[in-house]
């Protein structure tokens, strides 16, 4: 797996060997890109938080779709079996793509203000934001609308001292203690899991997850491995 995420967390050995993500996009086959999108879709469905966006993958899948769509329109006058097969595959990929975007939008709508704040902090720390620029614009608009609506319906009728509104404080915080099902794509060393035998937080066991093994594990234990693409969620 190439250095798929631009998140600095993932800039480990992989990226030194494989080069920057942008460089090897051309080297991967369309099937690989599709596989990556499927994985991103699955991860997004299983992770309790919004994952760093994979619009590098989405964009290259979209350009595949457009190319294929154009071909179909050009040769598509005669309704051959081949044409229908291509059309069917196209429909499947469009579904996958849309579903991926929707899963992200659902999460963004759930805590738009909080995510904007977190991305702002990530930028300040020199990290890649989790939302793409389009998603960010969407979140901003959504927050604005939410705010306007709250004001119009309730807050404007309250005494001034009660009018303070902090949407980011109201948003649900992703529960990273939640257990997820993860599969190691590479052998992962140094996965720390809270130790149940010790009381209180801060006590951890370090485990190794062998390649292809599947575990039920707290999300925060595997978070960085999911970011780097060494693990996937099921």
């Amino acid at each position, binding site marked *: 797996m190439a250095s798929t995420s631009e998140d600095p967390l993932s800039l480990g050995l992989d990226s030194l060997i494989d080069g920057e993500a942008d460089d090897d996009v051309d080297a991967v086959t*369309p*099937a690989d890109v*599709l596989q990556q999108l*499927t994985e991103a879709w*699955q991860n997004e*469905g*299983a992770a309790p938080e919004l994952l760093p966006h994979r619009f590098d993958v989405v964009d290259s899948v979209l350009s*595949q779709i457009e190319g*294929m769509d154009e071909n179909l329109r050009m040769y598509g006058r005669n309704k051959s*079996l*081949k044409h*229908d*097969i*291509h059309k*069917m*595959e196209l429909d*499947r*990929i469009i*579904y*996958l793509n849309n*579903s991926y975007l929707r899963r992200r939008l659902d999460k963004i709508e759930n805590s738009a203000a909080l995510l904007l704040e977190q991305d702002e902090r990530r930028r300040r720390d020199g990290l890649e934001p989790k939302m793409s620029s389009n998603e960010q614009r969407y979140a901003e608009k959504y927050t604005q609308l939410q705010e306007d609506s709250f004001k119009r319906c309730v807050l404007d009728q309250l005494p001034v001292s009660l009018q303070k509104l902090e949407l980011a404080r109201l948003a649900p915080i992703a*529960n990273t*203690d*939640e*257990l997820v*099902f993860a599969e190691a794509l590479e052998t992962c060393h140094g996965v720390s*899991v*809270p*130790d*149940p035998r010790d*009381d*209180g937080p801060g006590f951890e066991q370090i*485990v190794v997850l062998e390649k292809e*093994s*599947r*575990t*039920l*594990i*707290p999300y925060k*234990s595997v978070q960085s491995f999911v970011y780097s693409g060494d693990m996937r969620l*099921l």
Partner: protein
Amino acid sequence: MNALECEFLAENVLLDIVPNFTDDVVHLICGDVGPFEASMVARVPAWLALYLKRRHKCRIVPPDWLTVNGIQEMINTETTQEPFSGVPAHFMELAHLLLRECSDDVPDSDQLKTLVHDMWDSRVAKMRTSTVKFLQSGEQRAELNNLTQMEITYARTSLRAATNHVNVLQANARDSR
């Protein structure tokens, strides 16, 4: 993830078909398929196999584990050993798809339906007992090798709710100490 999305994933698994038409290679985004030659076995993704089947363009060759003997053997291993046995990826989804969409291509399909159901039941029962054990242990991690996507999807909602509850209770117990 829900059951339909599991099925969507399972439809990417490659299956053998026997086409009744002749055509050259089709360059799909997920890889090339064909060339197709009438009555020569070809390997295609399940979604394509089912699509061709619906258009009466092929016969699907069921995977070799989808036989009465195959499933019976799987049930035997499943019930005699403690850990989950290794089953083909997406076995439940594929069995379900094939028995639903092309039961005429699968020999003994009625008997198979019952057997696949039995297989599912024995795995789900095992999952229930190990879930209870897991929750009682208070562990934060469990090895789940050999669980399939469908089983994970099936277990997720209740397991997630239960562990979140346990976590809250444990945190409360710590705080009150």
